[in-house]
């Protein structure tokens, strides 16, 4: 697991997290990522064959409550923070495209 993280990989993960990225930035991050991930590879030394992955640390299970409708934030209030809205909805450009 000592693979270098090249600029193509950086651009790939940037795309996965919907982050615009310039060629220059991809170069910079590529070097930094390789050293950070290289450091993390020390986890390979640990034998975890019989070890279950952690999931919850509170030991709570199935926290349930009654399904009761309660008043919540009004639509007007919610839309105060929306950059664009129309007729009570958040407005965005085309959602379905080639991607």
């Amino acid at each position, binding site marked *: 697991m000592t693979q270098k993280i090249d600029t193509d990989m950086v651009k790939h993960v940037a795309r996965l*997290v919907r982050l*615009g990225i310039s060629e220059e930035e991809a170069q910079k991050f590529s070097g930094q*990522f390789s050293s950070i991930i290289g450091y993390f590879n020390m*986890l*390979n030394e640990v034998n975890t064959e019989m070890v279950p992955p952690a999931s919850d*640390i509170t030991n*709570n299970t199935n926290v349930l*409550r009654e399904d009761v409708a309660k008043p919540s934030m009004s639509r007007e209030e*919610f839309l105060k923070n929306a950059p664009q809205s129309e007729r009570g909805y958040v407005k965005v450009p085309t959602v379905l*495209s080639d991607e």
Partner: protein
Amino acid sequence: MRLTDLTIRETHELLITKKISSVELTQATLQRAHEIDPQIKSYVTITDDLALEQARQADERIAKGENVTPLTGIPFAMKDCISTRGVRTTCSSKILEEYIPQYNATVTNKLADAGAVLIGKTNMDEFGMGSSCENSAFFNTHNPWDLDHVPGGSSGGSAAAMSASLCSFSLGEDTGGSVRMPAGFCNVTGIKPTYGRVSRYGLISLVSSFDCIGPMTRDVYDCATVLETIAGHDEHDSTTFNSPVPQYNQNLNKSIKGMTIGIPKEYFVSGMEAGVESSIQEAIRTYEKLGMTVREISLPNTKYALPVYYLLLFAEASSNLARMDGTRFGLSVSENAKDVIDIYLQTRHEGFGDEVKRRIMLGAYALSAGYYDAYYLKAQKVRTLLRRDFELALSSVDILLAPTCPTTAFKLGEKTNDPLEMYLSDIYVVATNPAGVPALALPCGFSNSMPVGMQLIGKHLDEQTLFQVGHAYQQETDWHKQLPNL
């Protein structure tokens, strides 16, 4: 002695005996904040009008003698990742620079109900990602003990405001040391409670399975007072515990004689600043004098805590920060956007700083096909081992003692060019969060004129013992009473 230098307990006494009013105290605090903070830069927003209104209401409560709590009329500062209705909450990020929440966090409501007075919102590393406050998108915060040094991070503004007496207490948030490390750098007392002890509702999430809101105060007594007020079950956060919150201060003076303190040998390795090590050794001797038994113990997986912590942080943060997409709130960059994806790409490119970009990309990497087993799943397995380390160690001793950082506060700019070097400054504080255990940070000396911090680590939900042992130390020493010259 300035009013703003007093503890909550001392201030409360003055308020209820009507020697001062909350309005006077609040005006004094605001005045000091406006005078001193231009050098420190701990506040992102100062809420003058709201503070004076809350102070007037507190004075009415005190005059009528109704609903007076230990925090009624007490001015406080809050890290800018905790939601405040009508007051902008930025996470020190461009993407939330103009964001004004429509609702309060549960802790905001609890403090308002108790009658506390909000002075302002404090600077932080963007979204809590950093160890020096230098990742704030707005400005650097300076350490009140030496303005050329960092206050620590990510709750650097809350620690610096407390240290510089610009509030009577503050709230920070600790995902992997973000309360304790800056508390140590700035000579204040602070606690990372047990995960699930304090509601996260309205806290803008960094790592949902690590995040803990915790108070920063002048001493342990005050810390217990604030934690008691903000802790407890919340129907809006299903990870909060149902168990009752103890009245911590009632048992604060109980003897610690005969208790056992464990010293994790893995925390005392080369690379520690000499003055930090000698301060910690001195604190251990103080506890021996107080009748505690000291024993060396082992937390064998300590060296893996940092990679486990960061890998899980990257993964959870990359998914938590997906909501910052420029469509429903916050910054939106939509020029020439062909489709909604373009809004996401542009908004996040312009709105996030480099550290946030690094971490969410590395998170996507650790979670992506082909790497999930090697990084994310592996880290969750080693996390189980970290948790077992603490359980085993704390089954044979009452409490653990360790430094909060291998060095005192470093200089501004010293580590900003090397992200990995910056991550390494968290080495003593990250292990507790994946394990969920509570830890109390206390001032314990000075090295080259800068404060040294230590932490006491306890069993799940046993903040009581932490406070008791911390309080005993503060009865013997006066490090916590030292204030910077400003």
